[in-house]
C-alpha cells in the first residue's frame, strides 16, 4: 500500500528532552484542525533527557488510529539513530534529514530533502541552550510546507500550547516561519499531502490516562493514593490537577478530596482499603511491578469484602521489563490475583471513552460488589493521543451499594455483616461512625462467619467461599457487556480487547477487501457475560487477538468454555510496540491458508 493524500504517517526522530513534544503536538493538532483524523504515538526510552525518542503521527482520512508499521515521512533530527531511521524507510517515502546526520546510501526511489536546521536556527536564537529547544520548530515549518498543512492552523495549534508564554510563542512562531520560508525557496512539495476534510468537527484529542482521570472526577472520587510509576503516573497527576481545579473551594481552600502519595504500592492499596472501608470512593493507579506489590492486600479485600478501584496501566514485564512500552500481559495474574481462591472483576477499556466511563463505573461496581475492581488499561491507550467523540455527562447518580445507616439499623433486630439476605451473594455493610449499637463489626482476613466472628469451622469456611463465588456470578450481569459486530455469513470470528481494538478494526477491513469477512467481539470486562459464549458458539473459528506471549485471554476462555476451546486460535503480538493491523492480517491469512491445506 502506498501513501496517498490524507493517508500516510510521519515519523519524527529526535532526542529526549529537546522540546520535540511541542513541535510534534503542533503538527498533529494542525492536521486535526484541517478536519483530518490523526493519532499520535510516543516511542520513548526509560530516560529523562538525551536519549533517542520517536513520535509518529498517523494521518488517516478513514479514521484508522492504530499504529502502522509503514512510515511515509521521516524527520531525522537525531544523528545517533539516523542511519537506522533512514534504513527503515521504504520505497516512495520522504526523508527530511538534518543536514550532516550520518546516512547510509539511500536508494533513488526515496525523496530526500536535506535542511541545514542547525545553521538556520543560529541567527534566530543567540542562546545555545535555547537553540536546542527551538530547532525542532523549524521542521514544523518545513513539514507543513511539504505536506500542505495550513499555516493558520499551525499557528492556532502553537498558540493553544504556548499562548500563556508570549516570549516562547514569538520565538517558536519565528522558527516555523523560518522553516516554511526555507522550504518554499529550496524544496518542492511532497507527492502526497494533507487535504481539508470535515471529519474531526466536534471531536476531541485526549490521552487515555487523562480520560480515566476525568471519569474518576465525575464518578465522585474522594480519595486517591498512589506511588509514582510509568506509565500510570500521568493518570494520578492528571486527576490531582482536575481535583485541585474543580473540587477545592476557591474561597476557603477546603478540599472535598484527598490525594496521598504513598511510600510504596503496598501502602497505596492499604490506604485505599482503609478509606473505602470507611465509606470514601477510593482508588489507586499503578503499573506491573506496583500491581505485584498489591497482591496480598487484594486477596484481603476480596475475602474481607472491601471495595477498591485499581487502575493498572500495563507495560512490558516481567520485572522492570520495558517500562515505557505497551503490553496486555497482566491479564492472567490480575484475574486471580492473590494466594488462595480468588477471582476478580476486571474492566478492559479499548478507547479513551471507555477510560472515561469505566473511571466512573469501576466505583459503582466496587461498591456494589464490595470487592476490588481492576481497570486494565495499557501504555498505548494511556499515554498516546487519541481522537474521540466528546464524553457524555453521566445521566445516572452513583451506586454506593448495600450500606446500612443508623436509621436502617433502627428498623432491624440484628445486623450480620456477611449474611446473604438477597440471594445475590452480596451482604450488607455498615460504615465506621454509624451511631447505632448494632453497627460495629470486626473486619478480618482470617476465617470468619456470617457475623464476622473468627472461626476455623470447615463448613463455615466453605459456605463463605461459595457465597463469594455466587457474588462473582451476580457480577456477570452487572459488568459492561461486549460490543459485537456481526457480518452476515461470516464464519470467522475475531475476539479482542483493550488497545488491540483499533488494529482489529483496520485488519477486518483489509481482510474483507481480500475476501475474508469476519464477525467481531470486543470484550469489555471479566467475568465473561453470556454474549461471549453465544458468540463463540456461533463461529466456526475464533481468532483471539492479544498483546502478550502466553495467549492469556485464550487461556481464560479455555478455562471457562473448555468445550469451545478447539475453535480458538491465537493472534499474538508482544514486542512492546502497539499492535498494528498488518500483523493481524498476516497471521490470520497464514492460519487460514494452513487451514485450507490441511482440509
Amino acid at each position, binding site marked *: 500500500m502506498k501513501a496517498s493524500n490524507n493517508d500516510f504517517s510521519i515519523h519524527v526522530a529526535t532526542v529526549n528532552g529537546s522540546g520535540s513534544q511541542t513541535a510534534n503536538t503542533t503538527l498533529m493538532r494542525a492536521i486535526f484542525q484541517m478536519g483530518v483524523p490523526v493519532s499520535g504515538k510516543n516511542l520513548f526510552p526509560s530516560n529523562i533527557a538525551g536519549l533517542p525518542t520517536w513520535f509518529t503521527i498517523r494521518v488517516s482520512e478513514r479514521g484508522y488510529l492504530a499504529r502502522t508499521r509503514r512510515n511515509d515521512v521521516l524527520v531525522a533530527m537525531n544523528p545517533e539513530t539516523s542511519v537506522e531511521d533512514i534504513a527503515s524507510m521504504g520505497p516512495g517515502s520522504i526523508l527530511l534529514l538534518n543536514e550532516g546526520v550520518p546516512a547510509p546510501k539511500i536508494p533513488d526511489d526515496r525523496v530526500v530533502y536535506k535542511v541545514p536546521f542547525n545553521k538556520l536556527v543560529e541567527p534566530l536564537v543567540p542562546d545555545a541552550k535555547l537553540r536546542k529547544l527551538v530547532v525542532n520548530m523549524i521542521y514544523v515549518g518545513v513539514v507543513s510546507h511539504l505536506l500542505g498543512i495550513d499555516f493558520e492552523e499551525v499557528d492556532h495549534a502553537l498558540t493553544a500550547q504556548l499562548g500563556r508564554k508570549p516570549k516562547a510563542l514569538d520565538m517558536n512562531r519565528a522558527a516555523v516561519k523560518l522553516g516554511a520560508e526555507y522550504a518554499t525557496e529550496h524544496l518542492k512539495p511532497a507527492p502526497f499531502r494533507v487535504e481539508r476534510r470535515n471529519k474531526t468537527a466536534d471531536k476531541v484529542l485526549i490521552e487515555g490516562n487523562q480520560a480515566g482521570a476525568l471519569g474518576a472526577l465525575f464518578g465522585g472520587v474522594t480519595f486517591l493514593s498512589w506511588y509514582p510509576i510509568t506509565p500510570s503516573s500521568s493518570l494520578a497527576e492528571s486527576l490531582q490537577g482536575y481535583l485541585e481545579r474543580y473540587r477545592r*473551594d476557591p474561597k476557603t481552600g477546603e478540599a472535598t478530596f484527598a490525594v496521598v502519595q504513598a511510600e510504596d504500592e503496598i501502602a497505596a492499596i492499604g490506604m485505599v482499603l*482503609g478509606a473505602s472501608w*470507611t465509606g*470514601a470512593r*477510593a482508588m489507586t493507579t499503578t503499573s506491573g511491578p506496583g500491581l505485584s506489590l498489591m497482591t496480598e492486600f487484594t486477596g484481603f479485600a476480596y475475602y474481607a469484602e472491601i471495595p477498591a478501584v485499581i487502575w493498572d496501566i500495563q507495560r512490558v514485564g516481567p520485572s522492570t521489563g520495558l517500562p515505557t512500552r505497551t503490553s496486555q500481559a497482566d491479564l492472567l495474574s490480575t484475574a486471580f490475583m492473590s494466594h488462595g481462591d480468588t477471582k476478580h472483576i476486571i474492566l478492559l477499556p479499548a478507547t479513551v471513552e471507555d477510560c472515561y466511563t469505566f473511571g466512573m463505573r469501576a466505583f459503582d461496581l466496587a461498591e456494589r460488589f464490595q470487592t476490588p475492581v481492576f481497570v486494565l488499561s495499557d501504555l498505548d491507550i494511556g499515554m498516546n493521543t487519541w481522537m474521540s467523540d466528546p464524553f457524555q455527562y453521566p445521566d445516572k447518580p452513583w451506586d454506593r451499594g448495600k450500606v446500612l445507616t443508623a436509621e436502617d439499623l433502627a428498623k432491624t433486630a440484628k445486623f450480620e455483616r456477611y449474611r446473604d439476605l438477597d440471594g445475590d451473594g452480596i451482604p450488607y455493610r455498615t460504615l465506621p461512625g454509624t451511631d447505632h449499637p448494632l453497627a460495629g463489626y470486626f473486619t478480618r482476613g482470617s476465617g470468619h462467619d456470617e457475623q464476622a466472628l473468627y472461626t476455623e469451622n470447615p463448613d463455615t469456611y466453605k459456605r463463605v467461599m461459595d457465597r463469594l463465588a455466587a457474588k462473582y456470578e451476580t457480577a456477570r450481569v452487572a459488568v459492561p457487556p461486549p460490543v459485537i459486530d456481526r457480518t452476515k455469513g461470516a464464519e470467522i470470528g475475531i475476539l479482542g480487547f483493550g488497545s488491540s481494538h483499533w488494529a482489529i478494526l483496520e485488519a477486518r477491513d483489509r481482510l474483507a477487501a481480500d475476501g475474508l469477512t469476519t464477525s467481531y467481539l470486543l470484550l469489555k470486562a471479566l467475568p465473561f457475560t453470556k454474549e461471549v459464549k453465544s458468540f463463540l458458539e456461533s463461529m466456526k473459528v475464533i481468532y483471539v487477538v492479544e498483546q502478550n506471549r502466553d495467549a492469556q485471554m485464550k487461556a481464560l476462555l479455555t478455562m471457562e468454555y473448555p468445550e469451545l476451546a478447539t475453535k480458538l486460535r491465537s493472534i499474538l503480538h508482544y514486542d512492546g510496540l502497539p499492535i498494528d493491523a498488518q500483523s493481524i492480517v498476516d497471521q490470520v491469512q497464514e492460519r487460514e491458508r494452513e487451514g485450507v491445506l490441511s482440509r
Partner: protein
Amino acid sequence: MTPEKTAPEQAANGNKNRIGLTVADYRGAKSTLCPGCGHDAITGSIIQAAFEAGIEPHRVAKLSGIGCSSKTPAYFLSRSHGFNAVHGRMPSIATGVSVANRSLTLLGVSGDGDTASIGLGQFLHLVRRNVPLLYIVENNGVYGLTKGQFSATADVGSKAKSGRVNELMPIDVCALAIELGCGFVARSFSGDPKQLRPILKAALSHRGTAVVDVISPCVTFNNHEGSTKSYLNVKEHDAPLHDIFFIPRYENIEVDYAPGESREVTLHDGSRITLKKLGEDYDPGDALRALETIHHGRQEDKFVTGLLYVDPDKEPFEQDLKLVETPLASLPLEKVRPPKEVLDEVMSGLMTGKA
C-alpha cells in the same frame, strides 16, 4: 448548683461514665491469648481508659496488623468497628480511615514484629505524616504466634528459650518516632496500669500520631531467666521518669504540688497532663533530651518509662490536606460530582478540530 446526691445514687452513677455507659460497654470478646499474657493486661487498661474518658464506642475505629497483639482489638470495645489488617500494614489502613472520616478516633494495636520488622516502613511514614491515632506497640521482643523467634526489638544479650542469644541492635520504636517528629511518644509497662492508663487517656486526647510502646512480657516464649523482657526483669529495671496524671478537658481539677515538683502539659483539646517529678527533673518537650535519656537507659539496662516526648501543637495530617469539615465518606453526590458545565469546559478545551 446541682442538688446534692444521696449516697445510693452516687454509687449507681459511679458505675457509669459521663455518657452513661458502664465498663461492660467497653469490653469485647473473651481473649484467646495465653493466661497471664501481658497483652491482656493492656487490653484491661484500654477498656478502663476508654470507659473513664467517656469515649463513644461508635466513634472509634480499632485497627491492627497480624500477631498476638493484633488479635486484641477483638477483646475490647465490641461496639466499635474493627479492622484486623495484613501483617505490618495497619498504618496504611489507618491513614485511609483517618482521611476518609476525620471525626473518628483511631486506636491501633500492633506488636514488635508487626511494627519494627515487616511494618517498619509503614510505621515510620505514618509518624512522618502525623496521622491522628493512638498507636500502641505491645512489645515483648519475640514472635509468639510462630513460637518464639526473636523480634527486632530484642535487646542485645537477651536469651531466647532455645538458648540462642540475640547479638543484633534492638530497634527502639520510641526513638525512631521522636526522630520523625512524633508529637506524643511514651513508654510503659503492661504490669503498671497506674502509669499506663493516664498515658492512654492522654494519647487518646492528642491530635496527631501518639506512639505508646508498652513492654508486655510473653509468658510462654520470653519469660525465662536470661530474657531481658521477662516479667521479673522488666519489673526490676523499670525506671519511671515521673508519676503521670491526666485531667480531661471536661474536668476542672487543680493538682497542687510544691513549686518545682511537677510539670504540666496542656493538650490541644484543653485536657492536661501533670507529671510529678521522681528524682531528676525531666522536660518532655525536649526531643534531644528524650533521645539521650533513651540511650542512657539502654546503656544502663533500664527501661525508661513515662511520657518521653510531647508536642501538642504539631499539625495533624488532615490539616495538611486542608479537608472539608464533613468527613469525605459522608459527602453527597452533588458535592463530589462537578456540574455539566465543567465537563463542557474540559471537552471544549480538547476540541481543536474546527467544524
